[in-house]
């Protein structure tokens, strides 16, 4: 409950939303799906801004990118045919792993990326797919790589009053990909997720992005494991080594679910599993 909110505004376009948010500053609370924002108890907020009425709720293929609007819900992303054709549907798998059906019916792509909890699943898949994030503020649009969006300090990357309006995922054919979430139950928060996307030339790896989520406060790429795979084949030995490097280069954090030791160990297990899946897919010729 937001105790002192007097009105709720429904901007009809992104410009109006940015204007209102910039004008009101800390007096305004932006609501998307509401799954986190509705629980705010901030007493300085007197105006709610529901951004789900200004569109940006569809997924379109344009100029070589899949444009995913900030108001697209997780269930919609999980079920999208076009997105399923991308890197063996790894982004659909990541979206489908978010909470339960009613949670996915509410959570938006934008809200999920901005909220960015330790265990948020989709951001790691976006990172593995080399996506871009489009921000909009009073000064105009700014497109940045997902690497930059996820690594920068929150308030610097997304300034107060700015909106994340869409995510762009390169519509590259032929990438092999896999995503896996490891959690206590089907609907619980992740302990560790891994995501991999690989570009093969013949049987050799030309480029790859290997991502660990949940082990630290943000998803990150494991550069050492990626470097190990470059120019090589996806063999059992190479997979074991890459997964081991992923473990060695993860300084995990503990929480109420698991210890540092367990979480660190699971990074190797889940990364190995994801890469084995990629190996099987590559042998099936897809």
């Amino acid at each position, binding site marked *: 409950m937001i105790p*002192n909110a007097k009105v709720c505004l429904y901007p009809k376009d992104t410009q109006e939303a940015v204007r209102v948010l910039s004008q009101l500053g800390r007096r305004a609370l932006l609501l998307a799906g509401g799954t986190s924002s509705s629980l705010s108890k901030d007493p300085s907020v007197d105006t709610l801004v529901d951004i789900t009425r200004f569109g940006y709720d569809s997924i379109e293929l344009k100029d070589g990118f899949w444009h995913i609007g900030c108001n697209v819900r997780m269930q919609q992303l999980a079920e999208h045919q076009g997105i399923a054709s991308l890197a063996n549907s790894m982004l659909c798998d990541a979206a489908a792993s978010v909470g339960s059906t009613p949670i996915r019916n*509410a959570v938006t792509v934008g809200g999920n990326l901005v909220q960015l909890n330790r265990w948020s699943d989709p951001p790691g898949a976006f990172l593995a797919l080399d996506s871009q994030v489009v921000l909009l503020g009073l000064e105009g649009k700014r497109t940045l790589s997902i690497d930059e969006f996820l690594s920068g300090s929150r308030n610097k990357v997304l300034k107060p009053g700015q909106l994340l309006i869409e995510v762009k995922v390169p519509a590259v054919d032929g990438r092999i990909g896999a995503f896996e979430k490891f959690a206590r139950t089907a609907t619980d928060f992740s302990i560790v997720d891994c995501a991999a996307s690989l570009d093969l030339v013949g049987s050799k790896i030309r480029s790859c992005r290997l991502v660990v989520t949940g082990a630290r406060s943000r998803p990150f790429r494991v550069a050492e494991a990626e470097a190990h795979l470059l120019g090589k084949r996806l063999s059992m030995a190479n997979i074991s080594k890459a997964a081991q490097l992923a473990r060695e280069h993860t300084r995990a954090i503990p929480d109420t679910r698991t210890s540092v030791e367990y979480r660190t160990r699971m990074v190797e297990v889940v990364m190995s599993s994801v890469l084995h899946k990629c190996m099987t897919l590559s042998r099936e010729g897809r």
Partner: protein
Amino acid sequence: MEIHVTINGKQHLWQEPPGEILLNVLRKHGFNSVKFGCGEGECGACSILLDGKSVRACLLVAGQVHGREIVTAEGLGTVDDPHPIQQAFVDSGAVQCGFCTPGMVLSTKALLDKEPEPDRARIKQALDGNLCRCTGYVKIIDAVEKAAERMKR
């Protein structure tokens, strides 16, 4: 703030603070099938259909439903004239204390509206957001199957 919302096909005009949790507002206005379980999105006791999709009323504030359409279990049927889904829950022994039942019934409605012939695996998936602490899930899944069968006819 004035909030216009359609509930179970009828238009309502609320004078409510837009930041109040929707679950509390619905109960205050007599929609008592919507239950308070956990208040943080885990249990499904507060399920409603919002524009046809099952969501949590405990994770929405009143302002977010202005101009939108809600269905609660009250909107499906009555004691004298139950909806086939409600009747199937009764006939299958899928109700013990009944606290989870309105949510289960609504998740079933959302599923069957989209997919009239789901298999058991799909039913489990569609009910993944609804916890039951007494009946267990076998009879509930039976009830969904039974409802699907009856609604086909």
